[in-house]
C-alpha cells in the first residue's frame, strides 16, 4: 500500500476511561543512581541510615548540570541492587525499605499564594533545579534549563497530546488533576511574564475537552485556552504541535524559544506545580500497564521507584505466559525494550507495554516509497538505508539523517517489514563522525 501513514491502531479507548489505581505502599523502593543524561552519581547515605521522603540522598553528575537524588519514601537504606533501567541497561539502584510512616523531609514547606506571587523567574528556576524536575514525557531533559532561557517568551504550550499509541498516563493525569495543571500554567506564565498559554490535546479526546471547558470558567481572563490539534502520529512532537497550535513552522534544529514559544509536557507541569507550591520533587507518577500480553490493562498512580514486577499481578498476570514477550518501557513506537521484567519505574517511564513477540520476516525492498511519504521530517529513509548498506559516507551525509526524530514511522509503514528506523539510526551515527 503506497500511502502516507498517519494513524496507528491502538487500544487507547479501552484503557483511557479506566481510573488510575493508587499503588503507594510497596515494601521496597528503588531509586536509580545514574540515568541516561547523568552517568555518574555520589551517594550521601550509608547502609542502615534512616531516610525521609523527599530527602536528598545523593547527587547525579551530568555533563553540564547536577541533579539531586530524592528518596521517594521514608525508611531504611538497605544497599545497592542491580536492576534494569528504562534505557535497557543494568544500573545500580538505591534500595530503600519502606517503613510506611511517610515522614517528610524538613525541606517540604507549603508556600502561600502571596509568597508564590513574589517569586521571580530566577527563584523559580532555583526551586525547580533543587527539586530535580525533568521532562516527564520521556525526554528527561532538565526543566530548569528551559527556564533559564533569556529570550522573550510570548506563549506557553502544554503538551497533553500523548500521540504514541497505547499510552494513557497523561490522559488520566489531565482528567484527574486539572487544577494542578492550571495552577502550574499560572506559575509558569508568571515566571516568563507572558500573557498567553495553550493546552494542546487531541481533538478526539472529548472527555478531556469537557473537563477543561468547565475548569477554564474559573480562569477567565488568565489567557489560558484549550487547543484541539490533530489526531495523527507524531502530533506530540514539539515541531508538529507548535505548527498546528500556533501556525509557526520551526526550522530543523531551531529551538522553540527563539520564536517566543516554550513547551512543557503536561506531567512536567504538574511536577512544576508540586515543586513551587510545596517544594516537593516528583515522587509519584501515572503509568499505564497495557499491551496484548497482559490480561487486564490498567492505569496506575505509583511511587517513583516501584518495581514493575509488583504491578503485573494487579493486572491479572500475563496473558499466554508460554508465548514470547516484548517488554517495552515507553511508547511502542519509540520506547526501549528491556530484556527482563525486573525493571524499575523511574520518573520518565510513562507506560509498560507488554506485547506478544511477532517475528517479522524481512522481504526485499520493492521501493514502494511508503517510508518517504510517511516521514514527518521529509527524509528519504529507503535511500539512507541503501547508503548505509553500501557504506557510502558521502551519500549518507548528503541525505541529512541528522534531521531524523526517530519516530519509527518508516519502519512502521514499511510494506517489506524492514526495520528502516534502525538503519537511519546507524546513519545518524555515521553522519556524526
Amino acid at each position, binding site marked *: 500500500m503506497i500511502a502516507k501513514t498517519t494513524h496507528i491502531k491502538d487500544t487507547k479507548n479501552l484503557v483511557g476511561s479506566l481510573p488510575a489505581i493508587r499503588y503507594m505502599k510497596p515494601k521496597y523502593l528503588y531509586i536509580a543512581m545514574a540515568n541516561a543524561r547523568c552517568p555518574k552519581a555520589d551517594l550521601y547515605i550509608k547502609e542502615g541510615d534512616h531516610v525521609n521522603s523527599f530527602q536528598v540522598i545523593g547527587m547525579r553528575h551530568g555533563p553540564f548540570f547536577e541533579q539531586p537524588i530524592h528518596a521517594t519514601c521514608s525508611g531504611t537504606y538497605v544497599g545497592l541492587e542491580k536492576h534494569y533501567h528504562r534505557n535497557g541497561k543494568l544500573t545500580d539502584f538505591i534500595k530503600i525499605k519502606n517503613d510506611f510512616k511517610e515522614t517528610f523531609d524538613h525541606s517540604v514547606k507549603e508556600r502561600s499564594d502571596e509568597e508564590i506571587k513574589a517569586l521571580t523567574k530566577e527563584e523559580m528556576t532555583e526551586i525547580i533545579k533543587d527539586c530535580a524536575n525533568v521532562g516527564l514525557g520521556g525526554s528527561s531533559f532538565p526543566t530548569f534549563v528551559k527556564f533559564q532561557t533569556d529570550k522573550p517568551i510570548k506563549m506557553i504550550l502544554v503538551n497533553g497530546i500523548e500521540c504514541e499509541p497505547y499510552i494513557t498516563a497523561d490522559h488520566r493525569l489531565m482528567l484527574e488533576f486539572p487544577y494542578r495543571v492550571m495552577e502550574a500554567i499560572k506559575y509558569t506564565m508568571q515566571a516568563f511574564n507572558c500573557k498567553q498559554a495553550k493546552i494542546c490535546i487531541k481533538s478526539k479526546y472529548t472527555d478531556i475537552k469537557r473537563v477543561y471547558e468547565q475548569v477554564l470558567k474559573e480562569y477567565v481572563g488568565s489567557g489560558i485556552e484549550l487547543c484541539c490539534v490533530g489526531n495523527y502520529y507524531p502530533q506530540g512532537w514539539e515541531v508538529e504541535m507548535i505548527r498546528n497550535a500556533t501556525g509557526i513552522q520551526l526550522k530543523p534544529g531551531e529551538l522553540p524559544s527563539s520564536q517566543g514559544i516554550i513547551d512543557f509536557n503536561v506531567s512536567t507541569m504538574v511536577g512544576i506545580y508540586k515543586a513551587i507550591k510545596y517544594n516537593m520533587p516528583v515522587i509519584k507518577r501515572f503509568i499505564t500497564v497495557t499491551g496484548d500480553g497482559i490480561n487486564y490493562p490498567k492505569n496506575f498512580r505509583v511511587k517513583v521507584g516501584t518495581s514493575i514486577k509488583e504491578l503485573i499481578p494487579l493486572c491479572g498476570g500475563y496473558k499466554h505466559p508460554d508465548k514470547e514477550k516484548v517488554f517495552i518501557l515507553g511508547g511502542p513506537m519509540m520506547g526501549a525494550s528491556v530484556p527482563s521484567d525486573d525493571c524499575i519505574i523511574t520518573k520518565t517511564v510513562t507506560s509498560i507495554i507488554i506485547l506478544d513477540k511477532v517475528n517479522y520476516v524481512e*522481504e526485499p525492498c520493492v521501493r514502494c516509497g511508503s517510508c518517504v511519504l510517511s516521514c514527518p521530517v521529509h527524509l528519504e529513509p529507503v535511500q539512507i538505508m541503501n547508503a548505509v548498506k553500501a557504506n557510502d559516507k558521502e551519500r549518507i551525509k548528503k541525505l541529512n539523517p541528522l534531521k531524523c526524530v526517530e519516530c519509527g514511522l518508516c519502519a512502521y509503514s514499511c510494506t517489506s517489514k524492514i526495520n528502516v528506523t534502525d538503519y537511519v539510526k546507524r546513519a545518524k551515527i555515521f553522519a556524526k563522525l
Partner: protein
Amino acid sequence: MIITKENAPHLRRKATVTRMMVDVLIALAPTLIFSLIVYPINTLVTYTISVFIMLSAEFVFIGLTHMFPKDGVKRTFKEKFIHSYKGTFTQNNFLSAAISAVIFTLIMPVAMKLPDGSIIPPIYPAIVGSLVGIVLGKLVFGGLGQNIFNPAVVGMLFAKLCFGSTYVYYADTWFFKMPDAVSGATPLGLINDGALSNITEYQTFDLFFGRIPGTLGEVYKITILIGLVYLLVRRSADFRIVVSYLGTFTVLTLVAGLALLGLGTGINPFSFTLYSLLSGGVLFGATFMLTDPVTSPINPPSRVIYGMVAALITVFIRLFAALPEGVGFSILLSNMIAVVLDHYEWSNPRFNWKNILAMSLIVIVGALITFLALMYGGVYHG
C-alpha cells in the same frame, strides 16, 4: 516466559508487499479472463509457457544464489535443497514472477504466422521473450526488488525485435470480425504509417471494448480501466505516475492534433486524442507497467517527472519514429531515468520550485517540439 529484546518501533502496519502483489494480480484478472474468453487457446498456450519459464527461472536463480558454500563437506540433496529454498523462495518471489508472466502474456500478439503459412499461437516469441525478460530484465540485476527494467517489457520488446515480422494481430473470433478494407492493421500502425485519414476506420466504441486487431490483452480498455480503478482505490499503484503520464500524454496528443488540423488533414484534435489514448498500450502501460514500484522512482516529485518523461517519449516514438511500440520503449527509457531522478545529489521528497520548474519545462518543451516538428519539420507525410 521468555522476554526478548527488540529495536523500536515495536508495531508494524498490516499492509505487506504480498498484499500489493495480490492486488496487482486481482487488477489483471478481468483483462486476463476477457482475453481467455475471446482467444481461449492462444491465451492459454502463451500464458502457460510464460508462467512456466518465468517461475522456473526464478526458482533456479534462488537455488543458485543460496547454495552451500563449498567447504568439502558432503551433503545430501535434501539438505542442499532445504538450505537453498527454505525462507528464501517466498510467496513474493512466486507472485512477482506470476505478475510478470501475466503482463507478458497480455502484451503478446494474438498469433504468429509460420513460413509455411500456417497460423499458430505465439509459441516461439513467448518462449524467447519470457526467458530473456526474466533473466536479462530481472535476475541479472539480483532478483526481486533489484531490477532496473520491467521484465515483461524487456521480454516483449526482445520477442518483437526477433519475431516481429511473423506477428499476426488479428484472428476471426465470435467477438468481432474484421472489415476487409484494412487487412489486420492495428490502430496504432495507422498513426505510425501516417495513414491518419484512415483512423475513422475504428469506432471509439470498438476501441474501448477491444473489437480491434491487437495483442492478447492490451486492447480491452474497459477491463483495464476496471483494474486501474481497483489499484488506485487499494493504493497499490501510485496515482501520481498514472495521472502525470495520462495527463501529459493527453496534452501532447492534443497539441499534435491541433498541428495536424493546421496542416489541413481535417482531423478533429479531440477525437485524435481519444483515439491515441485508446489505441496501443497507453492505458495498459500506465496501469500495470509504469506503476511497478520496483522500477519507478521513490520520491513523489520524481514519480511525477517519471510519468511525464514516459509520456513524452511515447508521443515522440508514436509520431516521429518508425516503430509502433512507443509505450514499451518509453517505459524502458524512463526506467533508466528513474534511477537518475532519485540520485541523492538532487532528490527531494517535497515539491519545490525546482522540480515544478522541471515538470513544466518537460511539458512545454515537449509540446513545442511536437507542434513545430509536425508543422514545419516535414515529419508528417500522410
